[in-house]
């Protein structure tokens, strides 16, 4: 039998190691992925959400700071950059397809991007959200680094934008497919494009896990809407004389 003190000292030693948090993150995702498969890929049983929930509960209950956790998790976070570069491969494979649909891609991009920004603006005004929080919310459909940059430029708070952007991604990935099914849309390119445009990387990851064409168009929308949001948000605010 190991004494309680000894057990505690082992815990104190392990929780200071990045390896502990790295292993916990991978393990919790595997649990989420297992449940996702068991549910026959039901969108609400999202492995990312399950994994985030498990890790957050562990951190909160054991009173561990996010900084300590991130010390281990940063190795996973780091791979987001190379993964973004890797998206060039599926886009390249479908390049002919993309060229053929260039016009509908452009129109859907402009309309979708404008709708995301204007609907956020209108709803914030209706609910009486303060201007600073409103500015932090406007670029939320762009990928996090772009959204944060735009937010800073127009007078929002970048860290709040990061939270809202992530929230947008999770909402889109978890509930987007219901909207698409409700509209009876079967075109995989269009479904993916909508997911990527509105809910950036997390929506793209979700589309990629279901269908390669959907994944490619999601990745395309993610990149294009990042650029569109960076141009349109400051432009719209200038038109309204708010910036």
């Amino acid at each position, binding site marked *: 039998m190991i004494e309680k003190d000894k057990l505690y000292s082992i815990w104190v030693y392990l929780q200071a190691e990045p390896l502990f948090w790295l292993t916990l993150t991978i393990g919790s*995702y595997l649990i989420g992925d297992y449940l996702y498969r068991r549910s026959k890929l039901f969108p609400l049983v999202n492995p990312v*959400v399950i994994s985030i929930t498990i890790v957050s509960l562990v951190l909160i209950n054991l009173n561990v700071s996010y900084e300590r956790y991130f010390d281990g998790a940063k190795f996973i976070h780091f791979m987001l950059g190379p993964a973004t*570069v890797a998206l060039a491969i*599926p886009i390249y494979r479908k390049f002919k397809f993309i060229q053929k649909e260039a016009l509908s891609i452009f129109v859907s991009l402009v309309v979708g991007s404008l709708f995301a920004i204007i609907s956020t603006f209108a709803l914030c005004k209706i609910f009486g959200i303060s201007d600073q929080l409103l500015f932090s919310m406007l670029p939320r459909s762009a990928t996090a680094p772009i959204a944060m940059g735009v937010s800073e430029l127009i007078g929002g708070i970048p860290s709040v934008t*990061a939270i809202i952007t992530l929230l947008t991604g999770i909402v889109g990935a978890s509930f987007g497919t219901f909207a698409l099914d409700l509209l009876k849309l079967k075109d995989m390119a269009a479904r993916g494009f909508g997911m990527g445009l509105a809910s950036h990387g997390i929506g793209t990851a979700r589309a*990629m896990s279901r269908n390669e064409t959907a994944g490619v168009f999601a990745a395309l929308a993610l990149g294009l809407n990042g650029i569109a949001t960076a141009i349109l948000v400051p432009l719209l605010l200038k038109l309204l004389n708010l910036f």
Partner: protein
Amino acid sequence: MLRSIFIIFFFQLMGEAIKKIFEIRIPGPVIGLILLLITLILLKRIKTKSVSNLKKEVADTSTYILRYLSFLFVPIGVGVVMHFSYLENNLSKVLFIVFISTILTIGITAFLMDRMNKIINKNDRKR
């Protein structure tokens, strides 16, 4: 494997460098993606064995990384949960706005593209 990892990291590094040099507000990895895509298109005509081997290696590694794309979002996702308090008493309003606007954006964008693609495909068949 190692060669393809080098190539992917190298393109990201180039992206970061270009972002810094020209002070563009686009993230480095996105610029890296565009550079890699342009390179692949330019290399299309070159069909020597070493180039196509390398391309296949990069494609295999990329496919492997992308299979776990969702997983890579877990660390920032945990950060969001831990920092929910930033939104203070606005949390329920923000959640509602994000929910409505995101779902509508997905629906409208996909619907528009679906209908436009149908028209394009119809015209294609006519020709």
